[in-house]
């Protein structure tokens, strides 16, 4: 191949900086993820809507029609209870679908991540980029799911945003928690174990995540009410419940905000440490 001459062509591009810009490298990683998400938008939407779509269709449209109704809580019907719950699942599960699963495969099998690991920024930033990008994906997922859980139910849904600030803060903190949890799981789990993780982690998280019932009602099963406090999805559901359906009983804001900040920070720390351990020997 006669590449010798052409490769030596004078660079039109800038020479390597004495000190690389971490921010630009980080931005480059974001751009790459955005491009791949855009290409994959269809499968992103499909995997995001399937679960809530069928859930609201069966439980809030078909079940009432065939006379199998869930009663709801006080003035709020079951469809209203579900709104924050299903949006919460959509947010939290982006962390697992968009971060944990691909990362687990890249780290153990395909090594696709190699090139990004050689980017001129600290490894912790590369790990944090995973969390940061998934925040946008989680928010996108929430936006996709919300209209479905709002419009599909046959019974009227009562959503009332008391504070847009609270809603925004809850969504962002929840999305961070999701991304950080995804990073943690992705660095801990081998691709062959993903099925197992769904069975032993994802299933209990969903069913014990105060998605289908408000946390306050668990007081009748005290041990469970306390046990579920270990589940980050509880705080996402309850936070959204407070922000979207304040009429339904929910945790006090200080409680779910503190818990979300702690889990976002804790899982970020754990996930980044795990990532570093996996990519540097």
């Amino acid at each position, binding site marked *: 191949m006669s590449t010798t001459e052409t490769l030596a062509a004078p660079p039109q591009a800038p020479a*390597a900086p004495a000190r690389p810009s971490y921010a630009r490298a980080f931005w480059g990683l974001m751009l790459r993820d955005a491009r791949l998400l855009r290409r994959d938008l269809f499968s992103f939407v499909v995997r995001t809507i399937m679960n809530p779509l069928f859930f609201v269709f069966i439980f809030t449209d078909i079940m009432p029609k065939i006379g199998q109704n869930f009663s709801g809580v006080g003035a709020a019907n079951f469809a209203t209870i579900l709104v924050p719950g299903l949006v919460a699942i959509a947010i939290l599960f982006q962390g697992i679908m968009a971060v944990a699963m691909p990362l687990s495969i890249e780290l153990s099998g395909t090594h696709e991540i190699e090139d990004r690991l050689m980017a001129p920024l600290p490894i912790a930033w590369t790990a944090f980029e995973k969390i940061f990008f998934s925040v946008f994906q989680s928010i996108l997922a929430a936006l996709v799911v919300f209209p479905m859980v709002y419009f599909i139910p046959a019974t009227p849904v009562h959503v009332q945003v008391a504070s847009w600030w609270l809603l925004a803060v809850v969504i962002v903190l929840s999305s961070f928690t999701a991304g950080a949890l995804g990073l943690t799981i992705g660095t801990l789990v081998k691709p062959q174990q993903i099925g197992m993780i769904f069975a032993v982690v994802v299933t209990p998280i969903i069913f014990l995540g105060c998605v289908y019932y408000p946390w306050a009602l668990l007081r009748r099963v005290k041990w469970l009410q306390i046990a579920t406090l270990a589940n980050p999805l509880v705080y996402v559901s309850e936070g959204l419940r407070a922000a979207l359906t304040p009429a339904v009983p929910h945790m006090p804001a200080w409680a779910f905000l503190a818990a979300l900040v702690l889990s976002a920070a804790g899982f970020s720390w754990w996930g980044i440490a795990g990532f570093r351990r996996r990519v540097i020997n």
Partner: protein
Amino acid sequence: MPQAAIEVENLVKRYAGPGGGVLAVDGVNLRVAQGELFGLLGPNGAGKSTTIGVCTTRVRPTSGRIRVGGVDVAAEPPRARAGMGVVTQFRALDRGATAWENLYFHCRYFGWPAAASRRRADELLAQFQLADRRDATPEAFSGGMAQRLQIARAVAHRPRVLFLDEPTAGLDPQSRMAVWDLVRGLRAEGMTVLLTTHYIEEAERLCDQVAIVDHGKILVCDTPARLKQSTGAGAVARVSVEQASAELEARLRALPGVTEVEPTAEGYRLLAHAREGLAPAVAAAAQGFGLRDFSVHEPSLETIFIHLTGRELRE
């Protein structure tokens, strides 16, 4: 002494593990001058990838001091990475991205602006003869194409130093030649290259300097030509016989010009001063001992390896 592109001083790497772990690199010293094409030749598990891993900030050294492009890799990994290109032993292209995107985003990671990155990606695809694969994802690439793209990507941000871990492992001969040409081209424009290989031919024909490594240690390091002279032999003969015998060994040893006779799996290996007259002499000496086959050739780096370790490079 001018500053070397790669300086490794007393590198030791012990991987944690049961029973005290694995001592993968055991006191390696290397100096690779600017613009040099340096090869690490050694068998599986010799510690080549570990050495590259340390140089490329991916393996933390147990002890030792490593500078690449004048930057201490342990102290400032991001700055060290900014000046190096790396092709790992894994064929690790971004599969969700096209060939062009692999190059484009790589430039973006290194802080290049969009327009310059686009130009660079186009230019590299043309130069590495991948222009017709611009929008294909690397899953569909042959091994040779994937490797060309990997090298293109590694040099996309114009690093001063390039690390290639087994760049031609698993490639067909034609693709191997193509990779060699690429590497020579990069060298010709002043790139410093450190590559690992367990192909003797690759080390001999491609590299300016070769270090032979085994069990985490550098056994010798010199130009291929000088390494080949270092045994003092001008020729090597392989003799394959039905049955080894002390008498045959003694006869071979007594041949004029023969300096060394080592038993091998199929017979003997002889080192001699010169090629001249060796073949007929060996044939005559082995008469009546069930001579199956023999060959006389020039000493290669493999001869050195065997000479130093008593083993063949490939087992």
